[in-house]
């Protein structure tokens, strides 16, 4: 059903999950149910206040009762009414005081934050008198590019263009170009300080869900039940363990040790033993264990004085254990803190909620015992049903919740502090806007989220368009990379269609950093109370007493009741959902073995779309397809009509999914051409009159209709939309991946992300610090259908090379590549490298500032005049001038650093030279000079320098099959082999690269490319549905090639024919951004570090090349003592020390300036002083020891 995918991507981009998540989060006037609004409604300023309201301390307001409402009104447990918080359009407050709406590109160029103001509507009630509501700005929120508040989205762009006198009648693409944006840019990222930042999605264990498993403890297997209880950003792990003696104990966060279950249950209010028993037992085999536990708690020896018999005993035990010896008041507070706050916070934090917690704990222990008795299997932690993904919106939720609370607390403090009886309260000046903005900005700029997580926001990867998209779809696991976590890294069957099986890094992050599959949907969360009401209408029985015959029903991991026919309930929920009566966010599963119905409607479940199958055919029919095509329907309409379903990993356990809807003959019955799934169209989906009525297909070659057998049966519940959707965007770029060995696809996916091409069409007005652009990017000759969806053909990253597979004089051994010099000279693989330098006229305290100018002689550290010759009178370089190593780009002077600088000289202070220069080992032409103004109204200049990168020895190239190599030789065209048609290959790769790596896809792509050049149309190499090998071979012979794709070739050096025929073809090669020009380095002498006087490290500092331990070992082995001395001393930090020769002194001598002779400052000796050659590091050690009070004497003597 490839058409369906086509229609899907008409409306959706590949990063829409990020944008949808942000849109769901951000508060706007039209969306009172936004996550931000919910946070505002729920926020309490202090623990004992109502949510959404703050009451000022009457002692500080002169006895008046002042209530400040900022949340919405609560009615029947739900917040209703107009939104009280909303976010405006992104704007910048200039230094002049004016606020202007900005676009993403303005933010990029001026190093601004792309943020929009947050307005909060506050009602003040003073002694029962309600005042007029006030709108106050509480801070700024970073805006996701292309989200609904972004200046580029929908109507916002039209408004912006009209306001700024732009081309009002232009098309949308032209308007985007007018504001300096790439029309095909996906958005989904933020702009912080002018740099693009992504909030990567996080994968985590599902909260509020009981997971039971075995754990190895002290060499024995114990059963453990765990639950990550989460409420409103607060997360607490409660775990329960059954020890070897059968006693179940519970551990609670922020409480030391573990508490016996029975005592905890009694403390929570299950006063009687029978209540304790009933809350746990579900099976008579459990009885002995439960009795043992109850007996244990009654043992006076363990729990003196009388054992724990009731609620009072239990509380007393807890008080004694955790707050022994403290005042009664404190003891009570401590225990209530523990039971109400730390224990299972998602069930509530009031004493009334304790009984719920007791029932929940009972259920936990029941699961635990069921595991022990073998009734239940271990939960699979790596099953996607037990995982949730946090997208940008969810992570911002955490951040905003924290920041908003801080602002409101501060507001309360400020209001109380500044309260003035006459003037009343004044809200606007009391709000500290920057508190909220800075908290959010700081987290976004550094990636350090609350909770100590790092690397949450990352700099967007702009190497190629594919790497950008892949970065926006990345899902990272918080598991530490250093530990093995083998199971967590393994590919799990539930990842099918949700997470790309191939795209993951190699090495330490393998399997922990993942990427989403092509079409996924992440749930936003749906109100469970609404679901609960529906369930009650479906004969759900209350949780009262034990009902062993009925099935249990769980909602979001919560046990909500029994049902007599759980299977029927499951079917009914699904039917209602398909009819639109229940939200499509609700997913349900029936567990046959435990008769449980598991219903989920929470946030963060990864779901995938499937076609619903009924009575052996799809619900979707050709009529729906037509309406989709015409745009009348979107895929949501299919969901509403029950034809398409989004299923999570939990529900998928119940389904029987057919991968294909039909089988088909090898060749078309009419035109006899080879058939493959890309060339077939299913004409009658959803039409099946009799059980064996056939599928009608249309041949893509000759448009003939013919019948084929259906693969759908009565048992099937769903049909896969297209099996190619299991891959992610990067892996989908490789053609014929199903013919390759799996690790090679993974490697290819990693390399595609490093390939140079056209990463964005506005590259000439962008100011990325580094960037590349390929001069002649080409669309691959062998394509995949997925390329249409990610617009690969608009942003290609590679070229089609004519390739021969043979050895060439040994210049291509070990994956080297021999290049044709003429091809290189004609422009093959050329690219341009950009680097942007920037300078700002910074202001300093005291009214001084930097100045762009040509430094004059009297400036401290000024260079000779010729260094400034390319600068104009403002000190800024001319565009298109040639610059190289250390040339000045911007002449700049700064005020003196210290006021006392300049020493004893009087007169005016000299300014310092602080020009911006080229990096020492780079050269190029000045491409663009941008002069603009920063947020603080100081001038900023950005200079982009470009340099051409022509392929040279050592540059790295790779095909799309994980076959990478560096250039081993650039050979003149006349020395290259040639065919009997005069074709000379662009590159020659080594035959040894193929057999052990089994990249058959590489071979097929070469053949496919060869055919495409002759036919003049691309070959389809889509996974599972591309043109098959047989068809390619047939095409080869039809086009007059040999079916093996080999050619007779002649040696360009000797002129003789080769004995063997050479396999040749055309294949897409990518230039990777590892180029010699950015890496080569050598030095003889150069800069040294100030402290140690040893050579600096690294190419950018013209560093030395380390002569390491192993290199030193070789010289020792050779006995080359003088070479060692040369390397380690003379060419490093060798210094001459003057040492006092007095054997009782042995200090370092100094040069007495007045007399011009060396003198020992300690013993005063002037004659007996000798030069000693040591390493400066030794001198440093001597100094450090002396600072510790350890005297080191150097006793000199002659060499013997």
């Amino acid at each position: 059903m490839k058409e369906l995918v086509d229609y899907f991507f008409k409306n959706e981009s590949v990063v829409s999950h990020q944008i949808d998540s942000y849109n769901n989060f951000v508060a706007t006037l039209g969306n009172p149910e936004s996550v931000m609004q919910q946070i505002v409604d729920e926020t309490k300023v202090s623990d004992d206040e109502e949510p959404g309201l703050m009451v000022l301390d009457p002692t500080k307001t002169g006895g008046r009762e002042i209530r400040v409402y900022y949340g919405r009104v609560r009615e029947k447990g739900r917040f209703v009414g107009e939104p009280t918080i909303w976010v405006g359009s992104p704007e910048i407050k200039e230094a002049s005081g004016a606020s202007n709406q900005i676009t993403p590109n303005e933010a990029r160029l001026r190093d601004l934050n792309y943020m929009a103001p947050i307005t909060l509507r506050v009602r003040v009630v003073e002694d029962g008198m309600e005042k007029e509501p006030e709108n106050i700005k509480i801070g700024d929120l970073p805006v996701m590019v292309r989200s609904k508040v972004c200046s580029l989205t929908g109507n916002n762009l039209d408004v912006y263009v009209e306001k700024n006198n732009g081309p009002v009648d232009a098309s949308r693409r032209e308007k985007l170009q007018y504001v300096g944006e790439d029309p095909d840019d996906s958005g989904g990222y933020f702009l912080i300080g002018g740099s693009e930042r992504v909030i990567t999605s996080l994968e985590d264990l599902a909260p509020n869900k009981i997971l039971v498993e075995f754990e190895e403890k002290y060499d024995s297997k114990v059963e453990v039940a765990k639950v990550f209880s989460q409420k409103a950003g607060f997360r607490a792990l409660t775990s329960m363990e059954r020890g070897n003696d059968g006693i179940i104990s519970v551990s609670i966060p922020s409480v030391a040790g573990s508490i016996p279950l029975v005592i905890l249950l009694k403390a929570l209010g299950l006063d009687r033993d029978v209540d304790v028993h009933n809350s746990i037992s579900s099976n008579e085999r459990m009885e002995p264990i439960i009795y043992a536990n109850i007996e244990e708690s009654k043992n006076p020896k363990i729990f003196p004085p009388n054992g724990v018999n009731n609620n009072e005993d239990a509380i007393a035990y807890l008080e004694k254990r955790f707050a022994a010896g403290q005042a009664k008041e404190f003891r009570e507070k401590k225990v209530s803190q523990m039971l109400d706050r730390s224990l299972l916070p998602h069930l509530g934090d009031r004493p009334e909620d304790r009984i719920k917690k007791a029932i929940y704990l009972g259920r936990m222990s029941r699961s635990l015992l069921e595991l022990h008795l073998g009734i239940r299997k271990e939960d699979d932690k790596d099953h996607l049903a037990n995982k949730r993904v946090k997208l940008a919106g969810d992570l911002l939720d955490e951040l905003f919740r924290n920041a908003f609370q801080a602002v409101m607390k501060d507001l309360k403090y400020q209001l109380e502090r500044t309260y003035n009886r006459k003037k009343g309260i004044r809200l606007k000046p009391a709000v500290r806007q920057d508190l909220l903005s800075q908290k959010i900005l700081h987290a976004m700029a550094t990636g350090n989220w609350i909770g100590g997580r790092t690397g949450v926001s990352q700099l967007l990867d702009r190497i190629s368009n594919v790497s950008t998209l892949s970065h926006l779809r990345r899902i990272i696991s918080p598991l530490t990379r250093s530990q093995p976590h083998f199971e967590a890294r393994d590919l799990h069957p539930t990842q099918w269609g949700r997470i790309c099986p191939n795209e993951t890094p190699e090495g330490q992050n393998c399997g922990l950093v993942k990427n989403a599959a092509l079409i996924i949907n992440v749930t936003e969360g749906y109100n469970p109370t609404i679901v609960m009401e529906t369930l009650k209408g479906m004969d759900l029985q209350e949780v009262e007493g034990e009902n062993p015959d009925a099935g249990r029903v769980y909602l979001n991991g919560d046990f909500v009741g029994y049902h007599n026919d759980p299977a029927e309930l499951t079917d009914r929920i699904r039917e209602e959902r398909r009819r639109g009566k229940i939200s499509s966010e609700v997913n349900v599963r029936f567990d046959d073995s435990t008769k449980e119905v598991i219903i989920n409607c929470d946030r963060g479940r990864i779901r995938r779309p499937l076609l619903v199958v009924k009575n052996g055919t799809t619900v979707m029919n050709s009529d729906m397809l037509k309406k989709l095509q015409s745009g009348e329907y979107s895929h949501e309409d299919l969901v509403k009509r029950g034809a398409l379903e989004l299923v999570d990993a939990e529900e998928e356990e119940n389904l029987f999914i057919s991968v294909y809807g039909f089988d088909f003959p090898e060749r078309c019955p009419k035109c006899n051409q080879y058939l493959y799934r890309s060339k077939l169209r299913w004409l009658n989906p959803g039409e099946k009159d009799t059980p064996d009525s056939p599928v009608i297909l249309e041949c893509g070659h000759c448009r003939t209709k013919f019948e084929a057998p259906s693969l759908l049966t009565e048992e099937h519940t769903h049909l896969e939309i297209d099996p190619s959707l299991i891959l992610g965007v990067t892996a989908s770029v490789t053609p014929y991946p199903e013919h390759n060995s799996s690790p090679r696809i993974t490697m290819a996916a990693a390399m595609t992300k490093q390939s140079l091409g056209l990463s964005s069409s506005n590259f000439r007005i962008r100011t990325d610090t580094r960037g590349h652009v390929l001069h002649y990017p080409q669309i691959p000759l062998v394509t995949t259908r997925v390329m249409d969806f990610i617009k690969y053909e608009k942003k290609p990253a590679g070229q089609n090379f004519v390739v021969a597979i043979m050895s060439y004089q040994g210049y291509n051994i070990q994956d080297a590549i021999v290049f044709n010099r003429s091809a290189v000279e004609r422009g093959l693989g050329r690219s341009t490298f950009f680097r942007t330098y920037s300078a700002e006229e910074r202001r300093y305290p005291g009214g001084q500032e930097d100045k762009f100018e040509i430094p004059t002689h009297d400036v401290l550290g000024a260079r000779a005049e010729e260094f400034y010759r390319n600068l104009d009178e403002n000190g800024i370089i001319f565009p298109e001038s040639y610059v190289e190593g250390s040339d000045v780009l911007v002449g700049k002077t700064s005020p003196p650093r210290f006021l006392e600088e300049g020493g004893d000289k009087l007169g005016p202070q000299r300014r310092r030279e602080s020009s911006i220069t080229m990096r020492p080992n780079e050269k190029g032409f000045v491409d663009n000079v941008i002069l603009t103004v920063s947020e603080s109204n100081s001038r900023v200049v950005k200079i982009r320098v470009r340099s051409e990168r022509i392929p040279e020895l050592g540059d790295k190239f790779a095909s799309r099959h994980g076959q990478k190599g560096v250039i081993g030789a650039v050979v003149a065209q006349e020395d290259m082999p040639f065919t009997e048609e005069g074709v000379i290959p662009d590159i020659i790769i080594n035959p040894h690269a193929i057999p052990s790596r089994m990249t058959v896809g590489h071979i097929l792509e070469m053949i496919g490319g060869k055919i495409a050049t002759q036919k003049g149309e691309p070959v389809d190499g889509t996974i599972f549905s591309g043109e098959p090998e047989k068809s390619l071979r047939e095409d080869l012979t039809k086009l007059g090639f040999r079916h093996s794709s080999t050619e007779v070739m002649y040696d360009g050096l000797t002129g003789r024919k080769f004995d063997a025929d050479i396999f040749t073809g055309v294949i897409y090669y990518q230039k990777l951004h590892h180029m010699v020009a950015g890496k080569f380095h050598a030095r003889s002498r150069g800069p040294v570090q100030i402290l140690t006087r040893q050579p600096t490290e690294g190419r950018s500092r013209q560093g030395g090349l380390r002569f390491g331990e192993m290199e030193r070992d070789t010289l020792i082995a050779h006995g080359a003592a003088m070479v060692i001395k040369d390397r380690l001393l003379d060419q490093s930090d060798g210094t001459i020390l003057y040492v006092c020769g007095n054997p009782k002194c042995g200090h370092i001598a100094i040069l007495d300036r007045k007399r011009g002779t060396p003198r020992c400052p300690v013993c005063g000796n002037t004659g007996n002083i000798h030069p000693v050659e040591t390493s400066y590091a030794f001198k440093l050690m001597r100094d450090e020891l002396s600072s510790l009070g350890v005297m080191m004497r150097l006793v000199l003597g002659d060499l013997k």
Partner: protein
Amino acid sequence: MTEQRRKVERGEGEYNLMSLKILKAEDRFIKFSIDGITPTIANALRRTLLDDIPKLAIDKVIFHHGQIRDREGNVYDSSLPLFDEIVAHRLSLVPLVSDPKMNFREECACEGKGCPLCTMSYSINKIGPAVVTSGDLQPMGNPDLTPADPDIPIVKLGPKQAILVTGEAIMGRGKTHTKWQATSGVFYKYHREFVVTKSELENWTSVKEKCPLSVISEDSKTIRFTDDDGCKAVRQLLDYPSVKVIEDDTQFIFQFETDGSYKAIDVLEYALKRLPQRLNTLLESLTTPD
């Protein structure tokens, strides 16, 4: 090494004569056969054709930066959609009709300064929106030395953009840079015959049907094909083990095209003259040890 080639190399008997026959000649295309030479000599000719034909190509491009005004005084921007080095590279690869009598700059009487005998200048002056093509290169000097094809796109100008450049073309050889390569698709192949015994290969008729008569010679038992004509159908026969393939590495089919800077036949003539010169250079550089 075949017996025949040994005789050719020694110049024995009937093999001491080599012969060149032009099979097909067009303005920019030529196909010919040479018999009675060895692969080494054939290759020497091929390499001469590729990298040793002097030809004119743009070697230096001077861009006007800043504002450009047209006659009405409208102001245009000299920034181009492509980088200057890309435009320069594209200009350098434009084939120019060349005069073989022109001097190499380093051998010229002007001592490398550049004079009309060794240098040819071109200019482009165009305002956007337009596509600048090779035809916009205006020769300054000898009006015959125009671009060989006028329709090669160089750069696309947007509105308010203009280009004002001059380019200096000098003579050079393909071994220095490919822009001085006058020929393309240069190759030779051995003369080859496929002897098919009719009784051993069933589908010989299908191959025969696809081939022109000129490549077939037939008797009652066998049928012989040659792929010298470039008949692709014949090539399939390489894959049948029962087909006997006879290759003669003393008979060569040559073919090449020119980029339009010269006529193909002139290039061939020059190459044949150039070949002994190259060998003489080698001979002259030989010194005998005292």
